């Protein structure tokens, strides 16, 4: 019981809820991608600073699918592989904007508190 819980905790140590979704949406805004390419892109872009288990991408993608922020279609990748390609919907674009602005506010708040020399 304890082991499973600690594992789960480890997995999300670096991310707050919704962060992964936000990054997915942002990435998809640039171009539609399939799951593998998506996670590689996020890892690469973040310079591997974020420890993301590749598997955790999929629950997040399903959540976005359910809320219709993204849509998915089977297609053929550049490497001639059968893949499921995700695309941002209009609702997804809007949601991303809101999330990003909320995140920025939060970040600004945290940054101010953490900034040295002020009290």
């Amino acid at each position, binding site marked *: 019981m304890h082991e499973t819980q600690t594992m789960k905790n480890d997995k999300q140590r670096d991310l707050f809820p919704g962060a992964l979704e936000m990054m997915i949406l942002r990435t998809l805004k640039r171009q539609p991608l399939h799951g593998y390419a998506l996670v590689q892109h996020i890892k690469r872009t973040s310079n591997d600073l974020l420890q993301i288990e590749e598997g*955790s991408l999929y629950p997040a993608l399903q959540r976005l699918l359910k809320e219709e922020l993204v849509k998915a279609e089977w297609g053929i990748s550049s490497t001639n592989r059968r893949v499921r390609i995700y695309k941002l919907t209009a609702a997804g674009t809007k949601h991303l904007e809101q999330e990003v602005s909320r995140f920025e506010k939060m970040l600004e708040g945290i940054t101010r508190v953490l900034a040295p020399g002020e009290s």
Partner: protein
Amino acid sequence: MRWLKQIFSRRRTYADLSDEIQQHLEEKVEELVAAGMSREQAAAAARREFGNRTFAEEDARAVWRWPRVEDFMQDLRYGLRMLGKAPGFTTVAILTLAIGIGANTAVFSIVNSVLLKPLHYPQAEQLVSLHQIAPGAAGLADFESGLHLSPSMYFTYAEQNRTFQSLGVWVPGTANVTGLAEPEQVRTVGVSDGVLQTLGVSPVAGRWLAKADQTPRGAETVMVSYGYWQRRFGGDRSAIGRNLMVDSRPREIVGVMPQGFRFVDTDFDVMVPLAFDRGKLILAGFGFNAIARLKPNVNIAEADADLARMLPIWMDSWSNGPGSNPHIYETWRITPAIRPLKQEVIGNVSEVLWVVMGTIGVVMLIACANLANLLLVRVEARQQELAVRAALGAGWARIVRGLLVESLLLGLLGGAMGIGLAYAGVRVLVAMGPANLPRLAEISLDTRTIGFTVLLSLFSGLVFGLIPALKYAGPQVALALRSAGRTTSASRERYHARNVLVVGQVAMALVLLVGAGLMIRTFRELRKVEPGFTDANHLQLLRASIPGSLVAEPVRVTRLQNEILDRLQAIPGVKSAGFVSEMPMEGFDSDWDAIYAEDKNYSDGEIPPLRLFKHVSPGFYETAGTRIVAGRELTWSEVYGLRPVAMISENLARELWGSPSAAIGKRLTEFPKMPWHEVIGVIQDVRENGVQEKAPEIVYWPTMMDNLFGPGPAGATRTVSFVIRSERAGTQGFLDEVRRAVWSVNASLPLASVRTMQTVYDKSVARTSFTLAMLGIAGAMALALGMIGIYGVISYSVSQRQREIGVRLALGAQAGDVLQMVLSHGAKMALLGVAIGMCGAFALTRLMTNLLFGVSPLDPFTFATVAALLAVVALAACYLPARRATRVDPMVALRYE
């Protein structure tokens, strides 16, 4: 509809997901291999990077699920499986619930149909009964039905009111119908104009009785009930327009009322117009029921005020004849007390029904307590299983839910069976119920009743399920794993819940038993009362009416009745026979009038108290077994000689002249123009209105007297109850001979109300016996359930404490000590339960005060007896397991583990 699509495409979604993840891993492996890794290394690395695939896939699937619904379905399946695994427990539980819920549903369906549902008339909430009280009219004042309306009152109210849409008067009666098959006495209801408009129920064929039908000496018309139409005319529409011989006069049938139509609380066959002759009406004649429909937004207080306003108008508009003072009725202090029609229909039965409903509800609670106890034991046995489930990650809320689902399932299964039982139960109840239970035909299991049953099932499931669920599924459940497999003598606390339940059961059982005990005492008190007749079982009654159209001359009516008596007395086995205008408790409308005593002074216009009066034949008292306290009985020569004689009841003799013997030879009269009648006999008091009611003062006139009203020499009583004393009363052969005897005198005399006096008596105590039977059944169930409860708890605690008892015995405790230890555990619970129950009974029995007779709701004898009985029974229930405890073999008990 998106969610619906999601459900159906779920399989596809999951397959896509799986496929996608597979593709992901393969792509990764290929990339790594391309970068120079071996295939095995690459596969391992890909898996590492991916994390736990099962978790990821499961989490991803969970997004699409409805966890609540699906967990619930899982609980449901699990619950059914667990119940199926314990068939014994399940059967006992479901049966207990089915009986409890069935009984409750049956009683509720009656309460619902009789008390809760609106009457079967359009806008029934506007309907009222014009009830009025008259504290100054002694004799009429303690009449439950209050002061009826007189025809003149009806005209005043109908013409002058400001608060009613319509109003009318009606009166039930009987009439002879001849010319169809054999002569038949039918139930009639006489109605004035306005009655049908008030009730507002359209005829199923033909038309209503109209205003034109109400003109005296106009067209003679009738309406018939649906039942009579079916019975006599086979539901043929051509019956409309045909003539019906009612009391030997042809009347045209103009309409048929629909099926199920009842006249307030009365069934009828034929409805006749009252057709008052407005020009001949006087103030008096208070013999009519009145109903009215309130105008919208008028309340009862306003309508009362309206009636009160019209009373002086009534007194000014009519008179009782020249020389009489119309304002004499001011001394009666007539006060309108309008009641909703529903209240009038329900009458005094609502108390009984609520008491029965409460009682049966308490039985249900006791049954639930027993089930909770059973479940506690079961859950305790399942503690390991629960602990394992908790260890495997089930939240305790989930475990509680699982247990609750199980008990709710039990509740619903029991409820489903209970509805079946209720269906049968309603029939039994209706058959057992007070004979005059109103709205009997309306009783049915409707949607509201089914709703009640479902709620009750869920509620009981919740009640008995929540206790064990909360107790054992709590966060401490993991502890159970550690102690599992060891049956130590548990702490007191472990039994606490069960002890509390048993104490509650004993307390509730005590309340019910006290109720039942009080009813038994009431019944015994009722039996002790001398009703004014003896050996009711051997008294045959039958009622016959000789209408003027059949035999016009009064003397011939009396001779005919006399002849019938002679024929009846000639039947083998008949001791004696007589007749009277109505027997006690028969419930026919009685006659009341003011009675003047010769030696009393009455101030000008003063009206003395009203007395009940009856007409009797010679030989009546001897036949009925009514004692003659002083003086003598009437003779036939006095009847035919129209001698001015009378007999009075003992209480009237005492009131007027101090003692029965002093009354003999005194004279009294009904009104000034009537000759003084000499009192020749004083008769034992008779419980005219039922055993529980005070005996009224009665004047008995001879069956035939000088005619005081109309033309002709004499007046005879045309409708009488014949009373025959015989050991053969009530047998079919006897009744055939009685009918032959009557018809040998006149073949067109219908006989009605053929029954023994015992039936009449039983009917009059039906309310009490019904309540007694219901409380008795409930009390017995409560006692049995309570006993099982105590037995179960003690027995279980003994089996759990075997090891401890073994140790005690091994250390030298005597069997007696063990016995005492176990018994005192039971005794403590029983005594606590009895004490709490006493307080409960003390508070609750006053609710049934009106159902009791001759016994206080706090009757110490009943309380003491029931408490003792319950204590003894509880100890007896403990004794068996206690005995078993003393037989514990220390070696076996210690080796057991």
